[in-house]
């Protein structure tokens, strides 16, 4: 496991502590959760930026089109 130091403003540090208190999690857990959430959203944005033109060409204009065609 790698130990990482991060510089935060006082306000950001307070916000982080407030999140930890409300969730009952450590700062490390909150940062790991945030990183996973950020990575997933980035991956979704990347695939949703690249694939829709091909999907439209294949006749899938909306998610319902896909849901009804693919089992």
């Amino acid at each position, binding site marked *: 496991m790698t130990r990482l130091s991060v510089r935060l403003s006082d306000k950001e540090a307070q916000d982080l502590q407030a999140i930890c208190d409300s969730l009952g999690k450590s700062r490390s857990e909150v940062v790991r959760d945030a990183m*996973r*959430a950020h990575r997933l959203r980035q991956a979704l944005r990347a*695939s949703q930026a690249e694939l829709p033109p091909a999907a439209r060409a*294949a006749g899938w204009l909306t*998610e319902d089109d*896909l849901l009804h*065609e693919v089992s």
Partner: protein
Amino acid sequence: MRVFLDTNAGLSATIFAGLCEALVTECSDNGWLLTSPRVQAEAHAVLLRKFPPLPRASGLFDDNWREAELIADVAEPAEDNDARLVAAAVAAGAPIFVTGDRRVLGRKAVAAMRIRSPREAWIAFVRAAFARRASAVVIRVRKRRAYQLGLHHWPRNHALTLSVS
């Protein structure tokens, strides 16, 4: 609440912003997201067939499932892929199976697992989140009331009926 998303729901989240995407992010953020090698193989086959000029599509799909828990496939019934996915989710103890496939949706439930459309699953999530928030409010009110009564330690199983607006 662990949730298994069928191939069609996973593909939908990968391609379109919308309900299936919201389910994936909600489930992943809560550590509820399940998938299986068969879902990945089916998704790769669909993407290769539908998008032949985009060989990168399978990799983009896989990137969205890196945080999901991979459950084991099952071998039976050999002639029905959909039924094998449902059986794998049941074997993994998933309480919800999300699909857009009308034939699978028609089964409604298998053993203790409910089969839901993406919209039905989202409504269930919203209701569950509301219930969690409501019970948190009830607990806070009960603790405050106990303090007012001089009960500095809230006794377990102590029932106080309070209305919360």
